[in-house]
């Protein structure tokens, strides 16, 4: 393994400076260390420990929005009783991430910035499109875990559970880029992966996720996923829905799905369709049809269509309380 330096940054500015052009930020390390051990990314010159950056490990409630620092662990979210009340979907999404041991060290920033789990990308001896090769092996190969939608030739999906629920809550990631704070919606945070097979998200080298702001405008939220197993398994499909419910009618509803597209899958037309509607099975089903229209199932992932349909209906109906 290429030798690298290790430094602990005490401010975001020094973190950015230390990481320079060929460094990597180290927080929970779940994804980064795996990538390095499997030689899936070029070895960095320096690992910059950011766990000591001040202020980024806090969950801060607010009237209009809550702020969640990028160093907040997934376990912190899961175990915060107020989050369970204000953003129940966020609690449920956090509780589904990996195992308790991983949730204890996994951070919000790391969860959002994690790389593809495609088993061709993660394999040490395949050079797939995402690793700069010529070919997406999954397209005509073992694509049971892959995308129903994509804007490019790579069909590896985004798997961040937090991105799914954040998208439904219309949360914003604040990213330190070129010395400035840049605000990105979840759609923007992943957009590059939609069009560029090499990208896992829209972050540039040296970009540092600082925090996520979640508007309180949607007091109802829900999250569901289905995995092959009952715990400690990736979602085959995940789905989040959030809205305000006024007089039995949805207000500003948003639905997002994970693991079926390189980006959190959102269809604005379906959100508009649901706005002002009273939820019932037929409405939820109609929305699900709209959200999944245009899906292009491959040989082994067609099951995701009915699965996603069920999850959309269920997450929506849960908003009724």
């Amino acid at each position: 393994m290429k030798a690298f330096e290790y430094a602990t940054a005490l401010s975001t500015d020094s973190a950015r400076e230390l990481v320079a052009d060929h460094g990597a930020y180290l927080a929970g390390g779940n994804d980064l260390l795996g990538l390095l051990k499997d030689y899936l990314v070029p070895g960095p010159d320096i690992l910059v420990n950011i766990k000591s950056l001040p202020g980024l490990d806090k969950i801060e409630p607010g009237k209009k929005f809550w702020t969640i620092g990028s160093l907040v662990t997934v376990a912190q979210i899961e175990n915060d009783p107020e989050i369970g009340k204000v953003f129940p979907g966020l609690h449920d999404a956090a509780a589904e991430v990996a195992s308790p041991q991983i949730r204890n060290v996994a951070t919000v920033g790391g969860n959002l910035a994690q790389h593809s789990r495609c088993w061709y990308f993660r394999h040490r001896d395949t050079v797939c499109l995402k690793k700069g090769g010529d070919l997406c092996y999954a397209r005509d190969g073992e694509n049971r875990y892959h995308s129903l939608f994509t804007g490019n030739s790579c069909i590896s999906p985004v798997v961040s559970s937090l991105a799914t629920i954040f998208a439904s809550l219309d949360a914003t990631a604040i990213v330190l880029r070129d010395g400035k704070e840049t605000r990105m919606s979840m759609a923007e945070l992943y957009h590059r992966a939609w069009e560029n097979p090499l990208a896992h998200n829209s972050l540039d080298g040296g970009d540092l996720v600082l925090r996520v702001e979640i508007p309180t405008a949607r007091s109802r939220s829900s999250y569901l996923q289905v995995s092959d197993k009952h715990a400690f398994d990736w979602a085959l499909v995940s789905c989040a829905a959030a809205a305000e419910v006024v007089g039995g009618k949805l207000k500003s509803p948003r639905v997002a799905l994970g693991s079926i597209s390189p980006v959190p899958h959102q269809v604005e037309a379906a959100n508009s369709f649901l706005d002002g509607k009273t939820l019932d099975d037929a409405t939820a089903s109609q929305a699900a049809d709209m959200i999944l229209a245009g899906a292009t199932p491959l040989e082994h992932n067609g099951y995701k269509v009915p699965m996603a349909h069920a999850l959309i209906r269920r997450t929506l109906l849960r908003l009724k309380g």
Partner: protein
Amino acid sequence: MPSWPANTKYISQSTQRIDAPEKVTGRARYSSDIQADGWLYGMILRSKWPAAKILSVNLDKALQIPGIKAAVTVKDFPQTIRFYGEEIAAVAGASKQACLDALRAIEVQAEPRHEFVVREGDAIKDNSPQVWEGTPNAPAPRVRETGAVDTAFPECAAVIEGFYSTPVQLHNPMETHGNTISWTDDGVTAWASTQGISSVRDGLAGALKLDHSQVRVITNYMGGGFGSKLGGGVEGLLAARLSKEAKAPVRLMLTRFDEALAVGNRPSSFQKIKIGALADGTLHAFELENYGTAGIGAGADAGGGGGGADIPAPYIYKVPNTRVKQTAVAVNAGSSRAFRAPSHPPASFGMESAMDDLAAKLGMDPLEFRLKNDSNEIRQREYNIGAEKFGWNEKYRKPGSSPGVVKTGIGCAGAGWPAGGPSRRTQGEAQINPDGSVEFRLGVQDIGTGTKTVIAVVAAEMLGLKPEQITVKVGDTNFPPGPASGGSTTCASISPTVYDICDKALQQLQTQSGIADARGDNWFAACKKLGVTPLVVPGNWIDGLSNRPAYGVQFAEVEVDTETGLVTVKKVLGVHDCGLIIDKLTTESQINGGIIMGMGYALYEERVMDDLSGVVLNPNFETYKLSGIGDVPEIEIVLLNMPERGVIGIGEPATVPTAAAIGNAVFNAIGARVPSLPITPAKVLAALGKVPPPTVSQT
């Protein structure tokens, strides 16, 4: 004729594992924990091609990495590679990182061969690339025929045809394969993670051209093998050669990645079954065409274990008219090895699925259908006991008639394990000291099933002592030889051996001490009379105290979400027999483990290979999915204690019927058959006809 005592204090009762404190506190030193003086790490370079000719390997740059003390190649060149992950070279060094760096520094000149095949269905075609050049991948099927099948089918009132398949399953023991080996002028000492210390000793001695007396194998604690750790393996030979070259002990434990490639697996099966019954439900005709793959070939390095792709058919049933055609098809993948009840779980899944499909066609309750067609008296008893406990009659509904989106279903299946009997050559000895302490020494190994505890329980019972007063030493080829722990033979081998040792010890103690009955309260007084010389008593397996085979039935209850396809196992009931139960607690533990493993086979486990690159895509626990604690249902166990049959092993039958019972429960819930393991949400949705076809590629 010897016989087991009728009224027992420890036998057939529950005794906690005598080594439980060591295990739970971490004091137990497993083979992978051994740190011999001056030890080095060892690691293996594997082929990244599924088929290739290795022209040359240059180790120079690897040897220049700081900390690297030795490097060897596996074979002379050219070396023909036939599967992804085949061993090419190995290094030993002072740190893990040095070894990893050295593996990357090894220069390999190779001609990759683009003609390879990893799918059974492709490999069996006439125009397939050949795994072994010049030899068809599949030999002509062997055909076995009884009665008159072709005239029997028209005589049936109901006939079904099905195509049932099971995947390649990986052993994935928690402790990976490997050894620490020290090769000095005095010979070889191997601390092996093995289920057969003698077979490892003989294998290493043979390969290294040493006398058996120059090789000592030690296995104090090991973390599971399930049939795949009967030999020392390529990794054992490499560790020995590296040790000789480096003049230091080498610990070469495989990685989890390695485990998926070259240390065995359970062959797949593709079973085309046609089965028919007369109007009264009597099975009348059966036809099977089956093929499966054992990788490049079955049973390589199995050290006495099987691992072929053939399955027993029509499994535990007797059908008067049968035709069975089977063949094994080679693919470019690692060899199979014996795997916990070799060939039985796939046989059970195919046949028991077909039984329920036929019962449905006949409109019969599948349990009633089994009772009608399974002539085995012990299984009949087990089905009846199980049905009562499980509430079969109250719970049973016709397939698919469970209401609602989340449907419940129940199923059952039976097992028959022909082995489980003893190895008749088992020997052992006890040293009885004048202070009354006693040590049993047997050259077996505890694969994790509680072998040491079994020895302590039998000895305590026979000598009138407590199990904790018995010191047990196993896992050393310097002790009198015992069998490998395979075929569920260990318990039936060692229990009569310990009986014999105790019997002889008591006779000698009587002679030497003059005390008529040296047991229990008299023990210490009798031992004291030995003076200053301990008594060493050899013994061996004796007839009349052990037996075979074992049977067993299981019932499963599941919930199936018909919109997401998710299967949740709510309950499994196992009704099992293993003759005389020695320790109830470790017996139940075997059955729990068997059911949990069987559930993994039913719902999660599958080695996935890529057609285009030939690699194993899931060489890790992220995507090679094993039952986790969140998946494990309520497990209830009913044991039939049959002292009159003698001691029989239980390790293997316990895992045989689980997948079939769960598969049948899923069928009962949704009214559609998922004919292929593992039963994933994707396959459930497909069986329900909910999956849209692939979009035609736009390219």
